[in-house]
């Protein structure tokens, strides 16, 4: 019994951990800044392809782990200046602009790298034994690492000056600028941070899945669900949402076909929206 449960629990934890990082970025951008970013999945893809590039230049996972968030951050900064800053007040425009961006990015990546799935080397090969079950080391690493990143980000948010300035500037941009803080800079940094987190998730995800130009879109919907179901704008909401959605998506396919499982998660999100529109743990 335990030997069946352990892999299941660890699989769930893996998905939850990835969702945590991806949704953290989404929670900052959507939950706090109220920007609907349909290109969020492409940040993940970019992170994964940075890993591919790093590898082709002889680098490894650890280098990619540092480079990708940096690339994501810079990219996020440019995007914010060029496009996102113009659509803060208009969610419909945000949807159109980021969706258009997503289409373009997917095609550019496709044209650059081709349609064949890329593969990357894991930093840890092999498995270890846990209570009689064997489980890949890389996944265990991913779980621990992702949760650490989540904790650090949460801390930065709650305790650091940047976190405070961000929360203040979202509540009231006028007041914050009066206090000498530049809301434009804050917005740019926040958006870029969200992008960096997603890119990081892309690197972590790459060894587990087929790296293609279209890999990000599944995480787009999921991260929206996590933020909507868990509660937009709250850290514990992201944790709650990731936990719920990650567990469901791992557990359900054991009993029912994958496609039905996905439909059920969608239905859950819709029902939650209806009855608890502020999410499980509102801000």
């Amino acid at each position: 019994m335990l030997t069946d449960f352990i892999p299941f629990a660890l699989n769930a934890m893996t998905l939850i951990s990835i969702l945590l990082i991806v949704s953290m970025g989404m929670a900052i951008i959507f939950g706090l800044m109220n920007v609907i970013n349909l290109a969020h999945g492409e940040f993940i893809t970019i992170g994964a392809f940075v890993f591919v590039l790093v590898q082709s230049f002889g680098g490894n996972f650890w280098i990619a782990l540092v480079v990708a968030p940096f690339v994501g951050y810079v990219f996020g900064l440019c995007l914010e200046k060029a496009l996102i800053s113009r659509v803060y007040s208009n969610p419909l425009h945000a949807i159109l602009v980021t969706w258009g961006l997503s289409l373009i990015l997917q095609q550019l990546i496709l044209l650059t790298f081709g349609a064949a799935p890329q593969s990357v080397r894991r930093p840890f090969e092999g498995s270890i034994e846990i209570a009689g079950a064997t489980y890949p080391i890389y996944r265990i690493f991913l779980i621990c690492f992702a949760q650490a990143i989540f904790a650090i980000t949460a801390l930065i948010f709650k305790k650091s000056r940047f976190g405070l300035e961000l929360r203040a500037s979202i509540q009231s941009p006028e007041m914050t600028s009066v206090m000498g803080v530049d809301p434009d800079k804050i917005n740019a940094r926040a958006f870029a941070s969200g992008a960096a987190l997603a890119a990081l998730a892309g690197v972590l995800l790459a060894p587990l899945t087929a790296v293609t130009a279209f890999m990000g879109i599944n995480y787009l919907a999921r991260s929206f669900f996590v933020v909507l179901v868990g509660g937009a704008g709250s850290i514990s909401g992201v944790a709650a949402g990731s936990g719920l959605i990650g567990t469901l998506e791992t557990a359900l396919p054991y009993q029912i076909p994958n496609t039905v499982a996905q439909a059920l998660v969608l239905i859950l999100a819709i029902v939650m929206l209806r009855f608890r529109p502020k999410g499980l743990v509102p801000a």
Partner: protein
Amino acid sequence: MTDFTQTLRRRIARRPATLVAIAVSLVLLVLPAFVNAYALSSYRDVILFAIFALSLDVFWGKTGILSFGHATFFGLGAYGMAVTGIHFEIDPSIVSLVGLLAGVGLAALVALLVGYFILFGGVRGAYFTIVTLALTLTANHIAVGWSSVTGGDSGLIGVPPLVIFGLSFVDPFRSYYLCLAVLLAFLFGSIAIMNGRFGLILTAIQDDETKAQTLGYRTSLLLLVTFVASASMAALAGALYAAMNGFVAPDMIALLLSTEVIIWVAVGGSGTLIGAIIGTFVVWWLQQEISSFNASAWPIAIGSFFIALVLFFPRGPVALVSE
């Protein structure tokens, strides 16, 4: 006839959009005289897409709520028709009608359930859009994953040709005029309804939903009715498409199709109804030209269009993206 309806009729006749609609109808009526049979089949398909675009405009143009999920309904119509025709042993004389009912019924049901939960939960605007986006993604996954029923990635072929009340619609002329008839019925019906009282109420809801509620209107219900009607229209177009082309494939229930139909409506001007039809024809023609360069060129063009639309024409004369 009260003088109230008399005034309405006068106003319908005076609106320029109605005159354009009449002009376009006349052009489409005589079109077959000028093109060959093969091109006619292509035009017939464009007419079906125009019905699809009209269905989106009826909802988006009037309520201001953007749906990224309309391809779900088109696709449900198409797959409903195909699955009933292929997997079940039904009398050939009524299989098309049953397929139409199945496709439209399925789409209406999904729209009813999803719409009920979201609209009655007070969800509007961007959240609504996100949910419909997720809906299309999920529907697409099911279409690809449930291969025993849907044929998976390759879809299904062998959809029985359209036969209604003993009349077969295989011939390009007949099928063209049938689709045109459906389009014109929907077009002028929608114009009449949206220019009338119901349209006024929807505009009022878009202006100030709370005020409309204090006037006694059950706004969520009205929005739901519009959503379900719009979904049914899209499904009908999808079902006819499947029957007349003989196959279905997952790209009929895909996110890309949902974004394309948004463009068709946006180019023509959302809210004008006839604009959706004109937009479909214009964009279809553009797509033929652009795709011939490179398979990637079209998605890049769409993406750039969206960005340009927001950056340069947020309230443009040609593309009215309402807020």
